[in-house]
């Protein structure tokens, strides 16, 4: 596999990993700040649609940003471990937050 192909793969992996963290962050923050959630709702009519659109835009911007750098490190297996760790963290963070929210608000 040539250098450019490998780099595109890493760039996409990094963009995917950070996008998943972004989804977890925007989800939790929107529940903690009612004004922010309302602002998300105003943008498209529903906070979930806005989060979906923002996550796509975030991914595209990150992928474009990474693709302009010359950095390529690690191997595909390391990249996949990073993505899996970020996905696991994001999923657990979202679920744990809503569990905490349920228990704390009765």
């Amino acid at each position, binding site marked *: 596999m040539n250098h450019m192909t490998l780099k595109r793969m890493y760039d996409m992996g990094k963009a995917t990993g950070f996008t*998943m963290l972004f989804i977890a962050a925007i989800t939790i923050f929107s529940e903690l700040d009612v004004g922010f959630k309302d602002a998300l709702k105003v943008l498209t009519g529903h906070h979930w649609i806005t989060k*979906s659109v923002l996550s796509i835009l975030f991914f595209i911007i990150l992928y474009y940003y990474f693709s302009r750098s010359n950095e390529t490190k690690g191997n595909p297996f390391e990249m996949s471990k990073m*993505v*899996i760790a970020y996905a696991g963290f994001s999923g657990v963070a979202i679920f744990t937050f809503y*569990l905490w929210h*349920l228990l704390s608000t009765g």
Partner: protein
Amino acid sequence: MANWLIGIHAFLGEFAVLAFLWVFIELFNPGKDTPSRLRIISGLGLLFLLLAWVVGGYYYVSTYGSEVKPIILNGPDAWAHRLITEAKEHIFLLLPFLGMLIFSMIRFEGESLRTDLKMRKAIQWLSLLVVLIGLSMAGMGYLISTGVRTALEAGA
């Protein structure tokens, strides 16, 4: 009668899981046709995830919030919405990006997919993650349906 959009959403999600399960299993012992076949299978898996996103999202925004959510919240298992639906609708958002990454890795890798063991392992682990998150979506869907059923049985 259950909303038909829910059936389509579940169908798409389950077939996406099957597609990435196929990718996971075939990469244990790839053959001559594996790269081209997995491009199609992972592409279909990604397409199913994207369509499940649109169909499920449309149902969630147009019907669930106004018709289903109030029923669950008035029933004995309000946690089915407050925990399960809330978590499901957001954890789902991880799946299309993972699906796109897997599809892109298979497409970028091309014919060397058969000989590149590290790449195969990477794709297998990511595919397994999609399968596990996808199955958890199905389980959460069951819990949400249970929340509606118990609410209706309680006369909510």
